[in-house]
């Protein structure tokens, strides 16, 4: 009906209906009843008017949107790569539309203090919600980040959605070793179109971190619910621990790398970390990866058939209970059902099985109980490891990209490559 009258969203219209006559801007239809007009009144309020028995008349067409071309800027000191997490937005109050801010000029407008901190250049690699990302995007990002560093960037900041950010940070940690410059991931829990968004503080602290003598992949987000300072976490050690809080990201089984507060020029180390090393010109991303790996949550009564059917994968990570357990029926009870034969079956057919903790925190120890010992005897990898399930999954994908040999897989998995494994469980970090 609208098409026939040549009316589009953004046009000024008058809608006459039994309740009265209303003039305003026609809004695009969000998800909802398709038979309702959404009108923005001159006061700024939106409301919905049923299309039943209503007539709509065009008052004035909206002006054509001017595409402003900004002058090209030269390379900056710090590169900012965007993956779609909107860390910076602009709002068009006339229509209520929210646009991502990505060009250097837009980022400087969104973060006025940015110019004082560093000369930046920025580009958008792709636009996806992070839950839609996969190994393809990890590879792309690793290659682009390496490209930036080879071209002379002193540090790279990656704007990424918070949902799966730590899978990506783990992936890049394995793909880019001996970093001559840090790669700092940043996001925002509260969308950046709102004044309370913690994006500004996170972004500025991320850029500040990217300038430091740091040679790792890291993640920079709020340390507490207050806007006081951020924590910089190791990319292989960080996990999102809350659906919505600003301080959702925690380091697991370790302290964060540092407390960061750009306003007070504070980069306070909280644990040891790798400094910049290697030649920028020689930086290469080892992006070979096999993402045909299953990440499986283990639970009481998990069916042996379920494990059996995992044989179409090239690797399996089991998120086991306690110290690294799955049902193996150590006491040979009639009422318990072991999945050990199926796990062994996978291993025997060349599919490595790796253990990770359901408790998230704590170190695996599969020698304390019979259950664990039986799994170790079957060849399950992971005893003594203090990695997170997400990191173990990403690491296995990366290791399987390097080798298919079961012995070498076990060796590589049990070697600390990017800080994902440590020999000591620090106190005060739980």
């Amino acid at each position, binding site marked *: 009906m609208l098409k026939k009258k040549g009316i589009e969203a953004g046009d000024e219209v008058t809608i006459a209906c039994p*309740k009265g006559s209303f003039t305003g801007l026609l809004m695009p239809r*969000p998800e909802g009843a398709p038979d*309702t007009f*959404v009108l923005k009144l001159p006061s700024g*309020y939106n409301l919905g008017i049923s299309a039943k028995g209503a007539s709509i008349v065009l008052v004035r067409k909206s002006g054509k949107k001017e595409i402003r071309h900004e002058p090209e800027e030269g390379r900056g000191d710090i590169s900012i790569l965007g993956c779609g997490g909107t860390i910076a937005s602009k709002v068009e109050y006339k229509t209520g539309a929210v*646009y991502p801010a990505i060009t250097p000029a837009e980022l400087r407008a969104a973060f006025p203090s940015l110019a004082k901190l560093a000369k930046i250049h920025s580009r958008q690699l792709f636009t996806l919600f992070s839950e839609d990302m996969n190994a393809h995007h990890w590879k792309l990002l690793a290659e682009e980040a390496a490209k930036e560093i080879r071209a002379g960037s002193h540090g790279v900041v990656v704007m990424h959605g918070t949902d799966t950010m730590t899978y990506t940070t783990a992936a890049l940690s394995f793909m880019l070793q001996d970093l001559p410059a840090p790669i700092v991931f940043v996001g925002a829990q509260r969308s950046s179109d*709102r*004044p309370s968004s913690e994006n500004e503080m996170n972004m500025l602290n991320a850029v500040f971190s990217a300038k430091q003598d740091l040679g790792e992949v890291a993640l920079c987000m709020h340390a507490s619910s207050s806007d006081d300072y951020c924590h910089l976490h190791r990319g292989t050690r960080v996990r999102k621990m809350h659906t919505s*809080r600003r301080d959702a990201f925690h380091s697991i089984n370790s302290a964060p790398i540092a407390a960061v507060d750009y306003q007070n020029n504070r980069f306070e180390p909280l644990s040891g970390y790798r400094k910049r090393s290697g030649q920028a010109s020689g930086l290469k991303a080892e992006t070979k990866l096999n993402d045909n790996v299953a990440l499986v949550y283990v639970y009481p009564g998990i069916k042996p058939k379920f494990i059996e059917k995992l044989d179409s994968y090239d690797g399996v990570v089991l998120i086991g209970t306690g110290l690294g357990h799955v049902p193996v029926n150590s006491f040979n009870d009639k009422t318990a059902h072991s999945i050990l034969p199926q796990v062994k079956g996978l291993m025997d057919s060349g599919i490595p099985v790796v253990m990770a903790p359901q408790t998230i925190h704590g170190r695996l120890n599969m020698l304390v109980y019979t259950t664990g010992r039986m799994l170790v005897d079957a060849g399950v990898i992971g005893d003594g490891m203090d990695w997170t399930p997400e990191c173990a999954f990403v690491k296995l994908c990366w290791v399987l990209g390097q080798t298919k040999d079961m012995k070498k897989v076990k060796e590589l998995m049990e070697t600390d490559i990017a800080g994902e494994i440590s020999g000591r469980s620090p106190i005060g970090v739980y």
Partner: protein
Amino acid sequence: MKIGLEIHQRLACGKLFCGCPSTMAEQDAKPDLIIRRRLHPVFSELGEIDLASKAEFEKDRSFVYQVFAGSDCLVEMDEEPPHRLNPEALSIALELAQHLHMKSVDELHVMRKIVINGSNTSGFQRTAIVALDGKLETSRGEIDIPLLAIEEESAGDVGTSGNETTYRLDRLGIPLVEITTTPDILDGAHLVEVAEKIGMMMRATGKVARGLGTIRQDVNISTEKGARVEIKGAQDLKMLPMLAQNEVKRQDALVAILGELRARFKGKAVLNGGISDVSQIFKSTKSPLISKGIASGSSVFGLALEKHAGLIGREIQPGKRYGTELSDYAKAAGVKGIIHSDEDMAKYSISDSELSALRGMIGMKPDDAFVLVVAPAEQAKAALTKVLERARMDFVPEETRRANPDATTTYMRPLPGRARMYPETDVPPIPITAELLKAVSKGETLEEKKARLLKMLGNAEMADKMLRSRNLGLFEKLVEGGAEPMLAASTLENTLVSLRREGAEIKEPGPVLEELFALYGKGKFVKSAIPDILKEVAKGKSVADAGKDYSIISGKELEKIAKDLGYDLRAIMSKYRTRVDSKELDRILKGDIRK
């Protein structure tokens, strides 16, 4: 003169976008958690930002939020997205809209209205239009009610110290309805009538919150030669006519000052605006205010206002001068106040020599005035810049002002431009279906309720009292439970009140009175015992126990007492008034007389 009214009324239900109760912590309660935040304005596509936001942003504030565990959750802390809009609140809003003969929207869209003075942790207030196009009958014609919106209360302002403003989050999120009239209210008296009528209509539903601070009246006043001014926070209806009158007088006085200036300048007023550091003049001043300031690191800055002599001291509101306006603008920059030349310098112990040195230093002519500020240099300069800005306005400025208890007003901030609003995408649009509207109990109109109460009570005065009473809901409940209407009403409106005056207050009258009238209905004690029983309950006794102390004396026992006291009515009543049924006693005495 045009007068419009905007009423904000809290609803009697849980918070609007989360599961917290709408109860506030005690005034002096200690917060369970403190968090610190900053807000930043999000520039529009065109890089614009409205005046009021700019004013706030310039102050470079940080915000301290007090979190109270009984009233707040992660939603108030802006650490969790909003939950679905409270359906009970929506229902109440729709009912109020129906009472005002309004047309509800077909689909409710929640909007984010940008607020960056820190009073909302998210940086915006969630608000939605519920209904439009209503009417209110008044004794002087119909008033249009164009808008009823539902929105969340802001956090409570605890105070500002330097660059930090502290807020309490217990108030944040309590549901409000906002009811706006067109500016067709005729005068102060009419304003009171409109406010009262709307207020009573809302209270009669029993579904709005009662008590101090639960209703706020903002009055918009514009005069022909003046400007549109929004006056916030007039709590006392009785104050409204005086408030309106004073505002009109204030605007007229400002217009007169502008006219006077034009005459003095023989044309448009031109202020050169030199702000100078005059601290050295007061190096060894005897003025305590200035010397203390200098000792603690402040400077003294001065500004000359050409041809303003005598105008700054002119009274524009009862007890307030044009200088008070300039001072309020200066205060917005964080200083405590100003000193101006129309004041008596002896008040500050400023010597004549200091005065003439000052006049010389800032280049004042005989008909000029000056303004001084004692504060740290940057703040002092900012304050005088604001004063100059205000003095340069050759019109009455559009402002948001605060109502004071003495019916004068004080400048708060510039009138905001059109609200910056965009959709609250975390809350999907809500269809207002026919089913929902049907389920909204409209209940009685105010007129119907008035008539019903009159019929029940048979007394116009008590009916009116009950209609306005906070106890109306409880009254209806008690009558429904079988209590005699007049007895229930007088117990609520008279007995409880006099008990409270005597210091015997019953904190939760609801359950107490329900039990009381249940026992009374069973004939456990007589009507005249009720005040004494309640007095005992206020002291801590249970209703049952207190009731026992006043159990009815009747039958043989009463006959014996009557006999013992010689069937003397006065003697018997003076001793046992609260224990005997007068009808029964009457029968006994009459019987005796017949004997």
